[in-house]
């Protein structure tokens, strides 16, 4: 048959062209697919990639929310592995694939008698394209099937149902969550397809949603699909690090350096929202829609002064920004790091655009932070325009520190 050689030569040709164009930095690419992770680590990264190895996983503060990649996928899986050993093997496989994908390079040479090893969605040499893979575990991961119950992070539970939620079971929970973020949607697609291909026997997808980030419109923090700047008050720098990473002797040793991740799939009823007056919209958020300024300020990053407005005459007492972050000493350690995305899922039965917000936040204690804030938000006026229907609580494993490490390795010591 003529086909396999043709296929082979096409690939070689293209790869040669890419390597040539990129210069010596890429010459290691051809052997990257060979399983040695040391080679992967040594591979070039350059602009558009983030370090895979580190104390903490990327995709949280690397890059920080204000600079987050424009495309994302959140995929929850249920484990189908039969034993603790198979779970360890699964996590090793996810590590190997993630390391390769986040680093970039050439996949293994195709064999004439095998289907191609890579989808070629990103061409013959895979660019890192800013990909970060963030692996997190749900409370059901620790339910006793794999003898890991005693390793469960202290505050990890199934996501509770809040009174304003409209939960849809098919969109909730999961044993393991993959958060994939990259500069382009095809890179995210390629990554989830690759990881799934290599892990089919040990885990099966439960739900998956794609998100997209918006650029500043026209400046400052990006807007959500309700047209408001969203994330203005996010903590940054050292403060963010102090609020996000688990550093608590009462947590299991393996969990230090991890983080609690909350994902909430929140439908936004955008048609209805667009039929509501600007005054009402701004009162619900507590910010001006055009500039993002708090209603008592003049520019986006002005700090609201709630003490000067105790009756809520300027910023209503029920405004989203006021309930979520009252800016008091007592609530300072309840702040969390949001790293959310917009989503579009097609249409509802009533012809409305099915769109909304993949709310994503990270914190060192899901009860002290997210649950406390969310409890304050119960009954806020905004709930008529949004419907939380999916997501879950997960625990982000600590980072993979080097080529010998893998996600959750210390769980199995």
């Amino acid at each position, binding site marked *: 048959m003529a086909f396999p050689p043709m296929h082979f030569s096409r690939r070689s040709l293209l790869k040669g062209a890419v390597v040539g164009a990129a210069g010596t930095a890429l010459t290691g690419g051809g052997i990257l697919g060979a399983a040695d992770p040391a080679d992967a680590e040594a591979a070039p990264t350059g602009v558009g990639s983030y370090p895979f190895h580190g104390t903490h996983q990327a995709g949280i503060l690397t890059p920080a929310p204000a600079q987050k990649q424009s495309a994302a996928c959140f995929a929850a899986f249920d484990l189908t592995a039969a034993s603790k050993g198979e779970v360890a093997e699964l996590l090793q496989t996810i590590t190997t694939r993630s390391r390769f994908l986040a680093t970039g390079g050439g996949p293994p040479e195709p064999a004439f008698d095998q289907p191609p090893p890579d989808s070629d969605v990103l061409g013959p040499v895979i660019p890192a394209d800013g990909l970060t893979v963030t692996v997190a575990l749900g409370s059901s991961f620790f339910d006793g099937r794999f003898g890991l119950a005693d390793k469960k992070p202290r505050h990890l539970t199934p996501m509770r149902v809040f009174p304003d939620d409209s939960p849809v079971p098919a969109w909730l929970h999961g044993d393991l969550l993959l958060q994939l973020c990259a500069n382009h949607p095809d890179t995210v697609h390629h990554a989830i397809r690759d990881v799934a291909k290599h892990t089919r026997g040990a885990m099966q997808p439960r739900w998956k949603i794609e998100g997209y980030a918006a650029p500043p419109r026209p400046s400052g923090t990006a807007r959500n699909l309700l047209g408001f700047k969203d994330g203005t008050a996010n903590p940054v720098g050292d403060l963010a690090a102090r609020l996000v990473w688990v550093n608590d002797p009462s947590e299991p040793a393996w969990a230090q350096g991890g983080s609690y991740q909350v994902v909430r799939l929140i439908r936004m009823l955008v048609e209805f929202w667009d039929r509501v007056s600007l005054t009402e919209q701004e009162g619900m958020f507590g910010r001006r829609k055009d500039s993002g300024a708090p209603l008592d300020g003049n520019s986006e990053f002005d700090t609201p002064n709630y003490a000067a407005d105790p009756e809520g005459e300027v910023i209503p007492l029920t405004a989203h920004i006021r309930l979520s972050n009252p800016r008091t000493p007592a609530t300072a350690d309840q702040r969390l790091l949001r790293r959310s995305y917009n989503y579009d899922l097609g249409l509802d039965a009533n012809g409305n655009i099915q769109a909304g917000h993949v709310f994503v936040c990270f914190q060192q204690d899901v009860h002290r932070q997210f649950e406390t804030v969310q409890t304050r938000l119960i009954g806020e*006026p905004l709930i008529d325009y949004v419907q939380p229907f999916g997501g879950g609580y997960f625990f982000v494993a600590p980072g993979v520190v080097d080529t010998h490490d893998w996600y959750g390795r210390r769980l199995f010591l």
Partner: protein
Amino acid sequence: MASSEPASKPRTGRRRWAVATVVLGVALALVVGVVVGTTGTHSGSDVVTVTDDQCGGDSQVAHPGRQIFSVVNASHHADEVMLADASGGTVAEIAVIGPGTTVDMPADLANGTYTFNCFSDLGVMASAPVRVTGATSGSPTPALQMVTVDTLVGPNDDYETYAAQQLATLGAAVTTIQQDLMADNLTAARSDWLSAELDWERVGASYDSFGAEGEAVDGLPDGLPGGVDDPNFIGLHRLEYGLWHGQSASTLLPITKTLSADIATLQGNLDSTLIAGDPTNLPTRAHEILEDSLRDHLSGIDDLGAGAAYAETAADLQATRVILGELAPLIAPRAPTLVATADAQMDALQSALSATQDNGQWQPAQQVSQAAHEQVNAALGALLETLAPVPDLLQVPGIAASGGGDS
């Protein structure tokens, strides 16, 4: 809505460009007015300063056409600032401006005299006259005569009377369901459930606007940890779930008794401002009842087995007709074509809903063709766009529109 921030600069630029395009195709006379209107900042006359004892300072001269007043609140309190024309009608508004903040107020002005009015806890202050002179261009913002709470009291009293009648009908319908269940006649109970549900829809308690008492009658299992099996899931939808999921009459009978009591509670408290007693909520109801149909019925979200989305929407339409009828005399002078447009669209929606029936019987959405379903969505969607301005048109000064905000 352009602001004084750098963020707004591209918007200003776009506006100027758009104007320039118009100018190219129109007479020279227009140029003067437009240019003045869009570059009004040069004179500095567009800064309006609110202090503790003044609304707008010295008298001002403005030009016809587009103006963006930069309203500075230098007082110690929150204000609502409105710009009124000589008739007293409002042409621009900032619903809330906090002390120490600056907010842009765009307006399209005609020759004549205007006045800024500042509403705060301390009372109402009026500015010196703002005289607008010059070559006219474009069309001025139509002035809106604000309603008062008093003008809404009559229509809302009518609505309360109507709602009380519907609740009485509902109470009787629930008694009928009880009798069906006592006779172990589940077929009759299902049929009578639909009557009761439609009675409830005709009450017009949109968007949980009847608070917890309304939730007790028609709440969904959403938000309850146990979902449909949660003991706190009660009311009409709990009955629906049981009647269409093989539950026994004896299981459901206690639910009807609780439901009867909850309806009685609602009847007793109907004139509470937390339920139907606040007249300023009536304009919101004019569009939110049907927003509810779209969100909950036609999406399938609140279908717990009966497949009653079209029937419920038809009942919502009836309630909306009643409320719009009560408000029509107030809407007509403020938006002369709105009620006629809405009437025609309501008729279209009624036709589209009727077309989903089979031999006069309501069908679940799954049994209805996509074309017929799209006709319903189209008619309802167009109607909702028409009704959306009603709360703004009938807003009461000093009370920021709060539809849905009281839940």
